[in-house]
């Protein structure tokens, strides 16, 4: 029983933002400690940004993460506009908000699908990703690309939402609302999902505060923070929406927060489409003065923060970026410890630096006998637990 086993997981993950490396210390079935090693995804973006001019940086920061590829440019243009005191046209603010919320929908659906896959419900994966496709189609219609939309530019947006885009978008939202009803029902009513997710990977309010988690991870632990409401940017102060907060802090609460946020995002987009005024979509910027500015955005995973300092030339001399996962990943240290190995896959995924561990993961006995456990085995363990539970419940 007291064999201490180390499970290295990673570093390659096909689904993650960063290929991370986790080292799980196991005693029996329990995880007793966890090491997190990151840096496999370091591309030197902050340094690269200091060699590009202000317009180019928007494209660069878009490529930090493919899933929140509007949040980073959004935070960056907020920082530039804060620096240069630029008034952005009203219509551009609404378009930015619509794009950001569409992104939240696609990101949450993506997480929901992956979470389903980890606990052995591949049906959830397929359904969630099926309903993600129409949103990507809308992105393609409005921006010209399925991902990496390149909509943000300092002073406005690059493309307008045309009259003929609005009715297909509204239709997609109607369908999505129905799909969200289905997901909500499936998650809340399903006894197996409840058994797998309730009470697993708990992050209490106190712990969440100590580890400075942000976004849905914090809101599921009862911390009422949301940059959209607390420090409005874009057109968020002109629309009405609720900040979803759950108290439990377990993975079930995190799932609920994300599903309920889908409804709020749909509401926000509908309001924006109705209220959007006509007019210009960008302000021409002549020069960017010396100074410094900050931009904050509520990305799908939490607060995304950009700081830009300029010395009056056409390049930033310092560009600091803090992505939400930076705070959230560390909280795995609390959430995963004390759980079983079969829950580790879903626990590490719950903060949404989606964890899947398809590849290499080996269990190495401390001294002599080596046993190999691939990433699939870990997922299989998790899936088998669901099967076992199903049988016990007589389903």
């Amino acid at each position, binding site marked *: 029983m007291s064999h201490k086993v180390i499970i290295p997981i990673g570093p*390659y993950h*096909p689904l993650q933002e960063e290929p991370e490396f986790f080292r799980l210390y196991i005693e029996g079935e329990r995880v007793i400690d966890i090491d997190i090693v990151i840096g496999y995804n370091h591309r030197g973006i902050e340094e690269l940004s200091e060699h590009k001019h202000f317009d180019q940086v928007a*494209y660069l920061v878009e*490529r930090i993460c493919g*899933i929140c590829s509007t949040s980073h440019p959004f935070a960056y243009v907020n920082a530039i506009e804060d620096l240069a005191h630029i008034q952005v046209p009203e219509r551009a603010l609404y378009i930015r908000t619509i794009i950001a919320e569409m992104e939240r929908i696609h990101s949450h659906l993506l997480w929901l699908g992956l979470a389903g896959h980890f606990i052995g419900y591949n049906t959830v994966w397929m359904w969630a990703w099926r309903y993600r496709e129409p949103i990507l189609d809308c992105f393609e219609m409005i921006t010209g690309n399925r991902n*990496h939309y390149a909509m943000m530019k300092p002073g406005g947006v690059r493309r307008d939402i045309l009259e003929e885009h609005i009715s297909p978008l509204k239709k997609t939202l109607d369908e999505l609302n129905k799909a969200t009803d289905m997901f909500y029902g499936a998650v809340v009513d399903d006894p197996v999902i409840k058994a797998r997710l309730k009470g697993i990977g708990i992050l209490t309010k106190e712990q969440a505060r100590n580890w400075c988690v942000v976004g849905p991870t914090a809101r599921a632990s009862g911390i009422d923070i949301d940059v959209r409401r607390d420090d409005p940017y874009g057109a968020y102060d002109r629309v009405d929406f609720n900040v979803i907060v759950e108290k439990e802090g377990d993975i079930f609460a995190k799932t609920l927060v994300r599903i309920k946020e889908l409804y709020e995002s749909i509401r926000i987009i509908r309001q924006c489409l109705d209220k959007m005024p006509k007019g210009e979509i960008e302000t021409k910027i002549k020069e960017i003065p010396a100074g410094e500015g900050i931009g904050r955005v509520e990305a799908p995973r939490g607060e995304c923060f950009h700081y830009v300092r300029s010395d009056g030339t056409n390049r930033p001399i310092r560009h600091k970026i803090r992505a939400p996962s930076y705070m959230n990943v560390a909280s795995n240290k609390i959430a995963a410890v004390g759980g079983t190995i079969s829950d580790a896959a879903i626990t590490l995924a719950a903060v949404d630096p989606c964890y899947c561990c398809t590849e290499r993961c080996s269990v190495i006995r401390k001294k002599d006998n080596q046993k190999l456990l*691939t990433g699939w085995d870990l997922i299989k363990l998790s899936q088998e637990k669901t099967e076992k539970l199903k049988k016990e419940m007589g389903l």
Partner: protein
Amino acid sequence: MNLKLKALTKSIWVFHAACSPCNNCDIEVLDLLTPRYDVERFGIILAGSVRHADALLVTGVPNYKTAQRIKKLYEQAPKPCFVIAVGSCACGRNMFRESYNSPCNLDEIIPVDIYISGCPPKPEAMIAGIVKLIKKVGSSKGY
């Protein structure tokens, strides 16, 4: 075409290795498995280990930490093995060419058979790329 290659082109098992991507090509690769594109009907699935795979699919720009690992992965793969570079980063390092942490192109580390460019390439483009690869292998004698 020998028997080995003929078998290889039938249903390609893909091992997906991400060397510091932005995650976008990766979700588009996964998108291929979901109902709209569903490449599983052609026998293409993601393999759990590179030792079981017929093709190594690489996304992202290699950095100092991942470059050596991607080389190791290729060495572990049973040969013949296709290498598919997906996305502009894997094809030619995209905008990270000047980065201090990007030592070389992917094709300087391992031999690449097919380049699918785009940021990210559409799932249709990826399917078209695989089809071209199979045609190319089918028409060549030696490979």
